[in-house]
């Protein structure tokens, strides 16, 4: 018991040491992206000013903005921008295959996926949306500490085997799945199809290391898998590079096809590229009604 406590405390300490930089990075990425996006551009419930319009019959007198109306002869109604809070469910792959990088200069795929997830969460929270983690608690802290709450929950989520866990999702929620999606297509199709049937709209972001995209090895190499696959000895890696590229393209194509079929969005991201570009695309997709 005691050792377990000690281990947990140690882990918490390690995570605590790791999280703030990750959060800072996520906030930074989010701040960069936030300058490029805008609100809903529609009249509705919200805090920010949208427009003054002339008083129409049918409006309750209580809605008249007296300060604006006092300047002229006509009465004006003040309208605010529509800010409908929506719940966005986020998930990132925590399987061992994500805990890999091709060189010391690269970030781990998992690291990048978490960064994207938290940055997206920061953006969404800033936009007034609610953020949940698939497999996480049903109620999530809101307000200023919400992002920290997401980060803490994220570090506690167990590995769900390369695919999102079978958690209850409300109808018409939005889902974002981030992972490498290198597992066989039928499994992915089943998971996405199950979610799309709720119905839930979503987006799939594939994070790949450049080595996975390009297979830059040469000579005689014994490849070891990360998730209990059988070792493969390739006598001459240069010879199979073209074949590998084809196989990878087939996987991507399959993923794109199953996403289209479910009405979902699909994007890819390489860890040697800047995270902002992918995040901007992702956020733009989510901002669409």
């Amino acid at each position, binding site marked *: 018991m005691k050792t377990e406590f000690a281990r947990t405390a140690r882990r918490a300490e390690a995570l605590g040491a790791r999280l703030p930089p990750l959060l800072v990075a996520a906030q930074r990425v989010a701040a960069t992206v936030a300058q490029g996006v805008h609100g809903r551009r529609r009249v509705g419930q919200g805090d920010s000013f949208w427009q003054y319009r002339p008083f129409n019959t049918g409006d309750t007198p209580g809605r008249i903005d007296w300060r604006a109306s006092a300047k002229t002869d006509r009465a004006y109604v003040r309208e605010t921008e529509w800010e409908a809070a929506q719940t966005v469910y986020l998930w990132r792959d925590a399987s061992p295959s994500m805990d890999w990088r091709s060189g010391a200069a690269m970030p781990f795929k998992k690291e990048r996926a978490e960064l994207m997830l938290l940055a997206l969460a920061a953006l969404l929270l800033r936009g007034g949306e609610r953020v949940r983690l698939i497999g996480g608690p049903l109620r999530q802290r809101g307000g200023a500490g919400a992002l920290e709450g997401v980060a803490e929950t994220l570090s506690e989520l167990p590995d769900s085997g390369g695919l999102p866990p079978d958690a209850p999702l409300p109808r018409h929620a939005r889902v974002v799945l981030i992972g490498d999606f290198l597992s066989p297509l039928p499994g992915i199709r089943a998971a996405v199809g199950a979610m799309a049937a709720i119905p839930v709209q979503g987006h799939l972001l594939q994070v790949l290391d450049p080595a996975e995209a390009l297979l830059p090895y040469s000579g005689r*190499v014994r490849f070891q898998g990360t998730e209990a696959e059988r070792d493969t000895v390739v006598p001459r890696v240069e010879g199979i590079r073209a074949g590998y590229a084809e196989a990878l393209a087939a996987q991507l194509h399959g993923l794109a096809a199953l996403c289209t079929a479910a009405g979902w969005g699909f994007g890819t991201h390489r860890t040697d590229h800047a995270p902002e570009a992918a995040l901007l695309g992702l956020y733009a997709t989510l901002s669409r009604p």
Partner: protein
Amino acid sequence: MIFGLPLVFAAPWLLLALPALPLLWWLLRVTPPAPRVQRFPAIRLLDGLHAPERTAARTPPWLLALRMFAAGLIIVGLAGPVLDAAARLPGDGPLLLAIDDGWATAPDWTARMQAAQGALDRAERDGRTARLLTTARTETDQPPRLSQPLLAPELRTRLAALRPKPWPPDRAAAAQALAGVTAGAVTYIADGVATADDAPFGKALAAVGPVTELRPDPVIVRVARPPQAEADRLVARISLLPQPADLPLGVLAQTGDGRTLARVDTVVPAGSSAVEAAIPLPPELRNTITRLVLDGPASAAGTVLLDERWRRRPVGLLTATEGADTPLIGPLFYVRRALAPTSELREGNLDALLARAVSVIVLADVPLEGEAARKLEAWVDRGGLLLRFAGPRMAEASGNTLARDPLLPVRLLAGDRQLGGALSWSQPAALARFEGASPFAGLAVPAEVLISRQVLAEPSAQLVARTWAALADGTPLVTAGPHGAGRIVLFHVTANADWSNLPLSGLFVDMLRRLVDLSAGVAGAAEDTVLAPVESLDGFGAVAAPPPAAIGITAADLAAPVVSPRHPPGLYGPESGRRALNLGAALPELALAAPTPGAALATLGGTVRERAIGPSLLAAAVALLVLDLVLSLWLRGLLRPAAVAMLLLAAVPAHADELPALNTRLAYVVTGDTTVDGISKSGLAGLSVYVNRRTAASLGDPAAVTPGKDDLAFYPLLYWAITADAAPDAQAIAALNDYTSRGGIILIDTRGSGSGEGFAPGTDAALQRITRGLAVPPLAALNSDHVLSRSFYLLQDFPGRFTGDTVWVQRDQDRNNDSVSPVIIGGNDWAAAWAVDAQGRNPYSTIPGGTRQRTLAYRFGVNLVMYALTGNYKGDQVHVPAILERLGQ
């Protein structure tokens, strides 16, 4: 011998592993190289992919050959191959190893021991025992004895304990020890110097068995004989076996604490058996020399100890008259002051002086008559130097008295000669230059020395030869003549200032000192005193405690010594009267020994040493395996370019940048004299190290520059050691003027002023010649108020190797040049004091000596560098009191 190579194996059965190499070949062929291991998440995508062409899963043949070669090297190396193994010893039965270990073997002792070890190695390989015979008597004065037959390891320890003895071999006793002995083979390592008993010893050796005689080729034996003391020099005498080619030879004059004060290099012409080398030394320094050593391998024969006879020259002053020492006018007043600093002076009447041994007796116008004259004459006959001065009494003496006086070098005319004066047309006469044959030759004659009265010598055929100093008109002033074994010197003037102002000049001091140096040294002890051995030389010429058998020797025997274990070379007698027994004085003429009859001759150095090449082969195999590792990594793609670059960077030493502009460096002017340039270079290097250690300045290696050719702009300070033949051309002078006008500093060192006078003769004249073209500003003596004396350390004086010389700097402050003196002139030989050799030692001793003087020399150097780098920065300190005062108001 294997395949015609001089190669044997210590463990030949290991070579049986060589046929296993093809098996290794096969094993390596069938085992492909291990693949590189790579974790890869997208491994699923690799399934079912096949390369269109197959890679070589087998080891490439050239790598295979490399590995086979390495394996072969390991096998051969472990088998213990020995290269250049000499031929087997002849015969069988024990080996007799006869080794000369007399005085002549010390210089090449290591080669002799290696040859002996080689013979032992061969005996051991054949499983034979060996017996050892050394031909010199032991330290306990035991005659040579033949050892029992011993196994090689035991004999090796005995060989290691052998040392060359500082006495001759006793071949007669060695021949007796060989009587009736037989052995399978005889190896005789001979010294090659003939002794009287060579023939019986050779016969005895030949009777033992087949003899192989090893001797060096050529036999170089050098013996330093006791030197000859002359007025201003010490003449070292070296005898040696005639050589087929010219042989360079260096003689070092060393002090008691091992400092070398002077070195003379000479070349012995081919075929010559004796050579002399003069060591010019100022008398003060000569008296501190305790030994002469031949440069090269150390040996007792190459070392001459100098005892009191080469130094101690007591001077007796005959005080027959009262008032001899009256200040300024007494006849002995000036003589005493001239000689007291360097000589031991004794005074008294003639009997008191002659009661003890004395080298020189000075008579200042004392008439000699009767008994006293006879005693003095007998003393001169025995080798004394009588120094007489003329005077009124000698001038008054009649011609007959003078003719009868036996203690005059030349016959004198009665009366004296007046030069100048109220009633004379003539002027007081100056001195002529000293002739080459005179002991005074080389002394500068000051123009202000004038002779106004003198006694005259009677013209004769001998007069010119006996004249050591003359007036400008040729009249003899100092005459000298031999008398028995001694010498009589007459000054034709008085010893005070009555007749001339010669006693007032520095020339008088130099003349008297040279005369005293000319005299024979005095041995301290009586003939029959037994002198106990105090310190002995070992075979290598190093001072050690006397061997157990050493006993005292009488002073009479020292005159014709026999060096033996009883009387080893070294110092004998009480501290007040040490006498040296030198091997060189005891050895007869050298001659080459005839080889042993019937012996097979071999050269000592000619036999190539046996070399066990096993370790080298193993090292080569390891290197090959490392190469194999690198190649395997490369084949497996594990060798990254970055790693290779790192390896190469580690392997290639960083190249120091030698561009002068990138580093502050001191520089010296190349003089063309390699010795002087070497001193300058090592001196500046030593100073740079000291400055880097003590200050924030960071100096690079010193540079050698030739003004007019090299660009001087990069160097803050030029060190210029003046040589006597220095003659820079107009271009160089122009370059130096340009350098100083732009803020450069030249330190000009004449290397021989102060206490070093005599070390670098002629440099003062050279300095005058050089500075004629150089833009030297008005100079003033450097004192402790100058910035140079406080730019880093606070200094009172500025010594180098010598001390006491005035250092000259610019008198006026030149604001254009930051008040920095463009030239600094001195003669303290600073570079020699700063010099550091490759071992980090200071090769040139300071004079008069002491670590304090060297420290001060370095501090002067630091000040100089700081002065050159910072200008008058510290000069502002001078104004601090004034500034403080102003602030107070």
